[in-house]
């Protein structure tokens, strides 16, 4: 195994709080009192300081995700960022993102985020249509988003993402086109556009939803690239579009299998070719990392929900199905460098099969999904599992 100690590291921090759960959300998140939030934050800080994985390593990006991390005040968040900076070497040029929802930000909070080095804001808008926002169970309307947006710009956030969602029940292609144009006109540096997935266990799963049919969803996806293209955005990943130089480095790290450490409830890590997932149970988490958590062996105490050491076939499969998410695809040369054998020796027949179907293409030694291929990428990626 190659020594990864000199490579930069990414850090993910999970904040499992929000104002109110959305109808489609199946992530670890929910409303909580400030005192409970503070208890969690203390445990989180302790995890960052005491987990000891990669201590001192250079960090190229930090992503504070949720939930809605922006429910936290600057005061609440500061100790967490301090812990990161004191435990690792956060590079001066590091990308530091926080996810935010309209209606949870004010000037003071934004200023505090800026002061602690956060330089990227990812705002969850989802739609510019108020009736659809309501249907999704969002806490805000479009007007609120615009206010938050202007505030963020005024406070100096020059690298912003807006999250959008299509294939919402009752959404017409025209609704979606309008949302894309409205948002692109505000000129954020980055736009993420996901299709709604109805996950089991969410309120949506129990409802009879008027979801758009497959062909409509297909058209919406095509509209996304086309319309955003008109506004100068380039698609660099299945669901992500950016102006030049503003692709999200943190997420690209995931697709390129960079090492990352996830802190907080349910957070995932890739470290020394082992994938970890922290416990998803709040009580267990606070027992392991909480105030009185003088736990001799954290692992047996349930620190991790899952520990998955990756075999070489696992890593090859990941290299492929993660790499193919990016429009530039995967590099045959990089594959050979990492695994010591040519890409074709492992995946020749699969690649040939999908190339002959016009779903994969080869360009300059890279294998990538074609436009039709992106639409059925799941099916293709499954074929790269070994």
């Amino acid at each position, binding site marked *: 195994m190659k020594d990864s100690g000199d490579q930069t590291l990414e850090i993910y921090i999970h904040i499992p709080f929000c104002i109110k759960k959305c109808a489609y959300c199946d992530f670890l998140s929910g409303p909580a009192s400030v005192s409970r939030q503070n208890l969690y934050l203390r445990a989180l800080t302790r995890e960052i300081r005491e987990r000891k994985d990669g201590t001192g390593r250079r960090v190229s990006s930090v992503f504070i995700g949720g939930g809605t991390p922006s429910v936290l005040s600057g005061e609440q968040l500061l100790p967490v960022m301090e812990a990161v900076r004191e435990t690792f070497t956060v590079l001066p040029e590091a990308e530091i993102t926080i996810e935010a929802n309209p209606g949870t930000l004010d000037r003071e909070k934004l200023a505090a985020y800026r002061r602690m080095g956060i330089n990227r804001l990812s705002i969850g808008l989802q739609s510019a249509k108020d009736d659809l926002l309501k249907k999704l169970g969002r806490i805000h309307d479009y007007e609120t988003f615009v206010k938050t947006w202007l505030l963020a710009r005024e406070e100096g956030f020059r690298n912003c993402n807006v999250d959008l969602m299509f294939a919402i029940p009752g959404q017409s292609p025209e609704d979606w086109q309008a949302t894309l144009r409205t948002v692109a006109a505000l000129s954020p540096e980055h736009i993420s556009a996901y299709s709604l997935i109805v996950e089991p266990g969410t309120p949506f799963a129990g409802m009879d939803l008027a979801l758009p049919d497959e062909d409509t969803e297909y058209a919406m996806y095509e509209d996304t690239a086309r319309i955003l293209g008109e506004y100068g955005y380039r698609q660099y990943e299945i669901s992500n579009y950016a102006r030049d130089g503003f692709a999200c480095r943190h997420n690209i790290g995931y697709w390129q299998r960079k090492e990352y450490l996830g802190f907080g409830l349910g957070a995932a890590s890739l470290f020394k070719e082992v994938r970890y997932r922290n416990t998803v149970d709040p009580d267990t988490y606070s027992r392991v990392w909480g105030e009185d958590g003088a736990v001799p062996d954290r692992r047996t105490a349930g620190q991790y929900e899952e520990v998955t050491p990756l075999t070489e076939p696992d890593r090859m499969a990941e290299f492929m199905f993660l790499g193919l998410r990016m429009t530039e695809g995967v590099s045959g040369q990089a594959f050979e460098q990492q695994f010591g054998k040519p890409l074709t020796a492992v995946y020749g027949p699969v690649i040939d099969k999908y190339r002959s179907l016009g779903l994969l293409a080869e360009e300059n030694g890279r294998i990538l999904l074609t436009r039709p291929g*992106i639409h059925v990428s799941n099916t293709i990626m*499954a074929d790269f599992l070994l």
Partner: protein
Amino acid sequence: MTDQSRIRNFCIIAHIDHGKSTLADRIIEKTGLLTEREMQAQILDNMDLERERGITIKSQAVRIVYKARNGEEYIYNLIDTPGHVDFNYEVSRSLAACDGAILVVDAAQGIEAQTLANVYLALDHDLDVLPVINKIDLPSAQPERVINEIEDVIGLEAQDAPRISAKTGENVDEVLEAIAERIPAPNGDPDAPLKALIFDSVYDSYKGVIVFIRVMDGVVRKGTPIRMMATGFTTEVVEVGYFGAGQFIPCDELGAGMVGYLTASIKNVRDTRVGDTVTNDASPCAEALPGYKKVNPMVYCGMYPADGARYGDLRDALEKLQLNDASLFYEPETSVALGFGFRCGFLGLLHLEIIQERLEREYNLDLVTTAPSVIYKVHKTDGTVIDLTNPTNLPDPSEIEYMEEPLVNAEIMVTTEFIGPIMDLCQERRGQYQGMEYIEETRAVLRYKLPLNEIIYDFFDALKSRSRGYASLDYELCGYERSELVKLDILVNKEEVDALSFIVHGATAYERGRKMCEKLKEEIPRQLFEIPIQAAIGSKIIARETVKALRKDVLAKCYGGDITRKKKLLEKQKEGKKRMRQVGNVEIPQKAFMSVLKLDDN
């Protein structure tokens, strides 16, 4: 040696569900062979499958001692026979081992198709038939009506037939007494050379084949050198004995008139064919018992392991089943679509189903079965004739002079209100009407000559559904007839799927092809490209459906870098693919191969 006048060898015959096995249990229980507690319900049906389906698959036998009212002790040998038309030959051999038969008729349902078939079979063997009216405890029981029916239709004296309930045990004593009184004793010659009929055999891993015999003349004991007269197989007897309840009880010898078993370190049931005659190799009898015939499979299909890696397991399982079932035939075959498997031959569709279920249950195998086929006679232009059991092997049409297919004489008993629908069904299945007789005002027997290939698909299901379950069927093979047959091929994405090809009559080819395509369209999931499904005769396409291409299948956001979850989703997708068969570029679910067997939509 037991006095032959104290021996009664008999069987119980009945239409399915009329209570044959229940009566057998009651007889065993009444004679004290087992206490009630020791009795597992239905002792004689000792395979799980037999008990569940309420059918007897293998012949079974049991020896009972009965003390009659006259104070004498009798030995009763009860031979249970398979109750289904598929096993007619076995039934006939079991009957040949008996001197009399108890005919059980349901007091509510009366005579059914297999009642008649079995009675005629018994009369053919010169058995004295003792009618018994069962299920008199049912509210709908009409014993007097059924007795009249037996007298009118079969011509058997039945006024003093015991009216019983095998379920409650009521009047079963009457049956026991009637056996001693009315079933004749055997009258073999104890001093003649050994002549014994093989009526069944089972394989035991310690003793080898256990051969079930009825000694007609002479005697057999340990050390007797024996010869099977049809197969010519010779060996020396290791053990003889009789049948306890569910166990083999060794004894010194089996004399004329007795029913029992012998073992002789026989490794293969094929050496001991049912119907063959066992004689003393040192002093053989002059001629064998009549009626031996080699049973040949009537229905063939391909059986493939769902997981190709289990080919060896399937072979071992078939080998083991064949040890106990000489009529099961199998040989390796290869399919482009399904890989390595076996072409298997069966006595009929029920036999096929039973073997399939046993492979799946007892050997834990997941199987893909191709459409059953009968044996076609292909007359080639060069004058040769081939027996075709696999449609894939049909020669090029230019080499075929003509083809013949097997026909059966079918008797369908049905209540008069359903005569119309059942006649329609037979007509649709190319039946030739032979006649109809009324058994009573509300019931009739319809006689049709039907091509066997029309009844091996879903005829039983169709018959039942069109008569609300009331029609019953009996059939027997009656030869071959020239027929305008064609091979219908199914093309998926322009590639012929060999496992889906079948032979069909020209007149019904279009309809069947259309239904096949429709069915496959439902079964084949959408894939990355449009998939045409076509039915073709030679190069002519006669039906087409299209599975539209999958348009959308994208993974959503990857929150917080939880790659493991994403991978699990992909793995699930890949797992689903494993249950598919790759044909060219197309993945066909395994159940698609079997769903096409049920095409009747009425």
